[in-house]
Structures are given as structure tokens and as C-alpha cells.
């Protein structure tokens, strides 16, 4: 393998690892906040217990999110010095502002965890709100750099020199709001569904202990409600993201849809895989005219196909599969939420049928998968560019060799951290079953947090 391929694999692996913890770091604080608010509203101590337990797991997850994010941030400069030189001159604002968001999150996370028993309940709610704001803001800001890579703005390159720099124009590049919005709502959705998954799983296992069962039921309902709302927002916003691709990165949309010939009334190909030889999507279901409609709100929107672009600009064709998988998962989870809502609120049933419960259990892992697919689609689909039509990935990569060894070392460390984080969480929650806390809280509410 040449060094470019290894650098891409190494960076992609780092990001794929970081994003698991980062997404939960964005999603779970919002769930903790809602649990805190529900506790204040209903005075039902179960919600305080939820907030406490979710915070514990959040603290563990951040123990991996933060170092892996630090790796991501430094690795950008180490692996892609050419790219970061441009970013430094043009697009450093989001990185800089992100530092403030990290500070807000780190300061108030420590306050929320280690000073909870010494501050008033409204100060606690303010702290966890600031944690949620800090985490979401850091996600929004870093995603802005990614948005800039797809729709660069605020500079020109003339004879290899960067000129006409306008850092705010770069900051408010055309896809900033839609892309950042998509990342945040999908992270909220994932956080909620992960909570729902665990609750549903526990409900199946603890059928006979009414107290514990009811506790998890409340968590499930909270997770499903939030997950439902945010999966709707994710889908609506994802539609807008696709329209942006149509406008700004047409060859990426063409690759996502496996469309080779430019046409109006273009069909939407669902499933299957793109075949380069026959220039078609094999084994797919085609819905006539739909792609044109989705991309431009009218059936005669002209969609440009891959053949309009030189072949060396084509993204890898497998992104069609990634894109379909992300959208498919989004639609499926939206469907689960709607069925759950109808079952519970309209048909007024108190328990969910077993198959549906298994669906809920799958929801968390599935949405995490959608996050991975979405990112790999977005980054790989940008190839061969690191900054669209401005800089090739090959021109940004480090010239230092010996990357293979580093790739192996980083992968080993991610595996170790991944395994140990699971073991630590399992260990902790085995040692501290929820029953103990429910008991403790029925006779004493003074120290929710000091464990």
C-alpha cells in the first residue's frame, strides 16, 4: 500500500473510532438534561436515578471521547499538513471557537459530576445544559470544517498562493447550517435510541421485578419520544443535505444514486450495487421520476450523471451502498417510532409486543451504524478532493514515510480502549444494579450523586 492509502485508512479509522464516543457525548447530555427536567417537574425520583446513571456512563465515555478527539485534532496536522496549512490561513475560526466550546463542556461537566451535591438544583440544571450546549457546539463547529471541505468559500488559489481571504465567508460556507444541523440532530437521535435500546433490553430481562421494570419503562418512553422527534428532523434535514449535493457536488449525488447519464425525470434507485462495466445499479428497485423530484422539487429537474465528469473525479462507486444504508436505517427507525407512538398513545396499550421490543433494542446500534455510514459516505464520496475542486487529497498528505507501523499501533490502541470501555461499563453497572439505587432513593435523597 502506498502512504496515501495508509494515511487515509489511518485517519478514517481514527475518526470512525472517535465518532462513536463523540456522538454519545453529544446525545447523552441532552437525555440527562431531560431526565433532570422531568425530575424537577414530576418529583419522580426515578428520573434523578436515570440522570445519575447516565452521567456515570457519560463520564466513562468521555474518558475515551476526549483523548480520541485529541488524536483526531493533532492527527489532522500530522497526516494532512498541506490541508491544515490552508485551514490555518482560511478556516481556523471554527477550530478556535471550538476550543471555547470544549472549555465550557469540560468545566461544567466536572462541576456537574464532582460538585453536584454542593450546588443547588437549578445550578445543576444550568451546568448540564451548558454541557449539552458545549458538546453540540463542538460538533457543529468541527462539522463546519467538514462542510467547508465540500463547499469551500472565502478564498481563492492563484499560482499556488492563497488570496482574497475572508474568514467569515469561509465560516458561513453554503453547506454549514444544513450539514451541522444534520450532524447534531442525528447525534441526538442516536443518543436517545441508545438509551431506548438498553431500556428495552432490560425490560425483557427484568420482567418479574416490577419496580425495576417500571424504571426502565420510563427510560424507554423518554428515549423513544426523543428518538422519534429527532429521527423525523434527521430525515427532513437529510433531504435538504441531498438537495445541497445536487447544487454543489453533483458528482457526489450521482455516485450516491448510481446515476451515469444526465437526465430529467431521473429515477431513484434503492438498494443494489453500482456496476462500473454496465453503468447501472444492479439488483435495485427503481422508482421512476422520484430522484428528480427529491433533488429539485419538480419532476423535470435535470440530474447530472457521472459521465458528465472526468472519470478521475468520480468518487468510489460503493458510496451508493453506504448512502442507501444510512437512509434506510433512518426510515426504519422513523417507522419504529411511529408504530410505538400509535401503539402507546392512540391504541393506549401499556406493553409493546415482543418483536417491536426487539426492534427497539436494535435501534441504538442501527443509528450508530447510520452515523458511521453517513460519515464514510460524506468523506469518501468527496474523493479525490480534500477541498472540493481546490486541493487533491494526494497533495495534502504528509511526506514522511513509515505510516504502516503507526497505523498498526493506533489500531491496537483503539481496540484496547474499545474493549476496556465496554468491560468497565459492564463492571460498574453489575456492581451497582439499579435496584440498589432505587432502594436508596426511597429513603434518602440527599446525595444523589456522591456514590
Amino acid at each position: 500500500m502506498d502512504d496515501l492509502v495508509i494515511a487515509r485508512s489511518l485517519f478514517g479509522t481514527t475518526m470512525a473510532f472517535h465518532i462513536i464516543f463523540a456522538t454519545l457525548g453529544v446525545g447523552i447530555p441532552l437525555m440527562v438534561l431531560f431526565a433532570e427536567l422531568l425530575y424537577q417537574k414530576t418529583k419522580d425520583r426515578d428520573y434523578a436515578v436515570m440522570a445519575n446513571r447516565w452521567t456515570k456512563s457519560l463520564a466513562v465515555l468521555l474518558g475515551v471521547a476526549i483523548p480520541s478527539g485529541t488524536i483526531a485534532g493533532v492527527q489532522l496536522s500530522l497526516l494532512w499538513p498541506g490541508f491544515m496549512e490552508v485551514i490555518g490561513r482560511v478556516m481556523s475560526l471554527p477550530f478556535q471557537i471550538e476550543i471555547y466550546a470544549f472549555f465550557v463542556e469540560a468545566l461544567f461537566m466536572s462541576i456537574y459530576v464532582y460538585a453536584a451535591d454542593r450546588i443547588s438544583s437549578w445550578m445543576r440544571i444550568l451546568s448540564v445544559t451548558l454541557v449539552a450546549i458545549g458538546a453540540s457546539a463542538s460538533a457543529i463547529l468541527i462539522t463546519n470544517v467538514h462542510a467547508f471541505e465540500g463547499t469551500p468559500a472565502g478564498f481563492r488559489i492563484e499560482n499556488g498562493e492563497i488570496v482574497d481571504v475572508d474568514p467569515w465567508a469561509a465560516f458561513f460556507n453554503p453547506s454549514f447550517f444544513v450539514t451541522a444541523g444534520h450532524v447534531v440532530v442525528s447525534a441526538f437521535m442516536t443518543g436517545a435510541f441508545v438509551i431506548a435500546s438498553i431500556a428495552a433490553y432490560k425490560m425483557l430481562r427484568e420482567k418479574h421485578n416490577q419496580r425495576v421494570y417500571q424504571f426502565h419503562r420510563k427510560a424507554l418512553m423518554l428515549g423513544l419520544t426523543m428518538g422519534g422527534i429527532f429521527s423525523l428532523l434527521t430525515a427532513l434535514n437529510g433531504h435538504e443535505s441531498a438537495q445541497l449535493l445536487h447544487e454543489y457536488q453533483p458528482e457526489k449525488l450521482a455516485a450516491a444514486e448510481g446515476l451515469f447519464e444526465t437526465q430529467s425525470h431521473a429515477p431513484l434507485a434503492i438498494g443494489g450495487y453500482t456496476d462500473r462495466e454496465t453503468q447501472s445499479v444492479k439488483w435495485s428497485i427503481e422508482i421512476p421520476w422520484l430522484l428528480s423530484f427529491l433533488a429539485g422539487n419538480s419532476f423535470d429537474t435535470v440530474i447530472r450523471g457521472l459521465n458528465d465528469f472526468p472519470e478521475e473525479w468520480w468518487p468510489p462507486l460503493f458510496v451508493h451502498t453506504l448512502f442507501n444504508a444510512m437512509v434506510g436505517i433512518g426510515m426504519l427507525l422513523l417507522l419504529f417510532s411511529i408504530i410505538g407512538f400509535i401503539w402507546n398513545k392512540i391504541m393506549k396499550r401499556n406493553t409493546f409486543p415482543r418483536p417491536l421490543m426487539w426492534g427497539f433494542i436494535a435501534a441504538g446500534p442501527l443509528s450508530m451504524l447510520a452515523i458511521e455510514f453517513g460519515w464514510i459516505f460524506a468523506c469518501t464520496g468527496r474523493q479525490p478532493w480534500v477541498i472540493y475542486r481546490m486541493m487533491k487529497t494526494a497533495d495534502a498528505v504528509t511526506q514522511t514515510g513509515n505510516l504502516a507501523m503507526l497505523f498498526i499501533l493506533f489500531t491496537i490502541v483503539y481496540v484496547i480502549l474499545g474493549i476496556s470501555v465496554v468491560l468497565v461499563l459492564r463492571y460498574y453497572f453489575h456492581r451497582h444494579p439499579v435496584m440498589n439505587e432505587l432502594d436508596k432513593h426511597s429513603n434518602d435523597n440527599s446525595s444523589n450523586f456522591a456514590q
Partner: protein
Amino acid sequence: MTNELIAITLLWGFIFIYAVMATMDFGAGFWSMVYMNREKTKATNIANRYLSPTWEVTNVFIVAIVVALFSFFPGATFLLGTVLLIPGSIILLLLAIRSAFLVFAHIAKEYKKALTYISGISGIIIPALLISVLPITHGGFIETVDGVARLRMDKLFTSPHEYAFIGFAISSTLFLSSLLLADYSNAANELEAYQIYRRDALILGPISLLMALFIMLTMQNEAAWLYKRMMNYFPWIIGSIAMFFVAGIALFLPSTKHTTVRGRPRLAVVAIVVQYFFASYAYGKAHLPYMIYPDVTIQSGFTHPNTFRALFISYIVGFVILFPGFIYFWRLFMKDKRYLQQNDPS
């Protein structure tokens, strides 16, 4: 002041704050490991009580330094990023292990020992590697072949100058952290822990001063340009050494708080921070305008002026927003008696 000077001052400020916070952070991790088996004293508890809420905040500073570096000096980033790939990656790997296992050790009590050893030991290696960036910027270790810059690791790791820096990093990490923890235990009325950390500080202080002298000695040979320039700031160096003795005396003064022990650790901590400030001022000032000698100066690597202006505004706004948060944090964890004196942290 020119834009370049403002930028390098800000960057230097971050590095200084991080250097102080990180030595405390890594040192506290190390001490919590060393005193783990002494059940009777609270030395480990004190270290953990300091460490638990602060490590995240400290970590943000390292990210802040990297961001400030590539946003203010993108030209330097290209060279630094290229030559630091290997050492930088090793630091990152150690940092990941260290932070994660630090958190794990607090949660999985049964495996606390093993986990604390891993985080304590990896934590003490990190400052030794981090500081290696300094001798690299002194010149002589970067070689350019066919337009590609490369770090001569063989040269670096056979250089006495590098080992002087490594020795200095480790001894000051342990020195500063033991001094701070002495102060922290004094504030928490943990006299036994105070005695232990005071003793450690008294042993390690002179060692780190020796290491600093060793740096100057080796610098004479290996980075003569820098040595000559530093001598222009000789009064600062004298001031720095004077502050060291102030701190030493402070540790022997009668305590204002307790009758059974000696020392005014708060005064000593302040004096030592001033000592490091003076010394790094002289070092930094002499280093200018070079970022990496002789290839990159602060002018040659500087960012676009428009970007600088926007960044500068963001710094001011960010500072105004964050300042109250830092004050509140300080009050809750450094001053609040209820936190300092509790029995079991976490």
C-alpha cells in the same frame, strides 16, 4: 506590537499555562500511584481529589496549543507536522492510554491498582516527550533531502541537550506537582499528606534546578545562538533563581495555619510559578524571531491578516465568556472546604 508578536505571545501564554497545569496533572497522577499502597495517609486521596475534576480542563489546553499553532502559524505547521509525525503520534498514543485509564481507575475500583499503574507510568513519560519539541526547534535535528524534511531521530536521541530537557521535564513535573499537592493538602488540613509532599518538594526542587543548569550547559555547545541570546536576558535568569530560593525559604517559615508543621506552601507555589515564568520569558524572548531555527520565523509562517483579525476578536469574546466559568470552577474545587476535606473523592 505587531500581529506576529501578539500571536506568538498568546501561543506562548497557552504553552506556559499548559506547562504548569500539565506538570501538576501528570505529576498528581504519578504521586497517586506512588502512594497508593499507603492506606493510612491521605496522599493518594489528595492527588485524586485534585486530578478528578481538572484533567479534562487541562487536556483542552493541549488542543488549544495545537489549534493556536496552526491558525496563527500555518507555515510552521507544515514543517512541524511533517517532522513530528512519529514523536507526536507516540505522545498521542500515550495520552490516550493515560486519560482513559485514569477515568477507568476511578470507576472500576477492584482493578484500581493495575489501572493506576498504567496511567501513572504513561503519564510521566508524556512530559519527557512533549518537551523534546523544544530542542528540535533549536536546529540541527531536521534534515532536508529532495525537498522533504525529516527528523534525525538518531541525532536527537544521542544528544546530551535532549537528555537535559528530558531530565528537566521529569524532575519539574514531580517537583511542581508535589509542591502544589503540599499546598492542596495544607488547605485540606491533611497534615500527614502535607508532610510527605513537602518532603518530596524539598528533594526534587534542587534536582530540577540542577537539570535547568544542565540545559544551559549543553545549550552552549548545541545551540550556541540561543545561549548567546539568553545571556542578554541574564537579569531574568537571576530573578528566576532568586524566586527558587524564596520558595525554598517559604517551606521553612513557620506555618500560619498549623502549629505542628512548618512552611507556607501557598507562597512557595506562587514563587515557583514566578520562577518558571521568568525563566521561560528569557528563553522565549531569546528564541524569537525563530520558531524553528533557522528555517521558520514568526514572520515567515504567519497566517493571513484577515484571519488573524477574526481570530483575535474570537479570543477576546471567548475570554469574556469563559472567565466567569473558570472563576466558578476554581471556587468549587480549589477553595471550597467541603470539597477539599471530604473523605473519599469521586
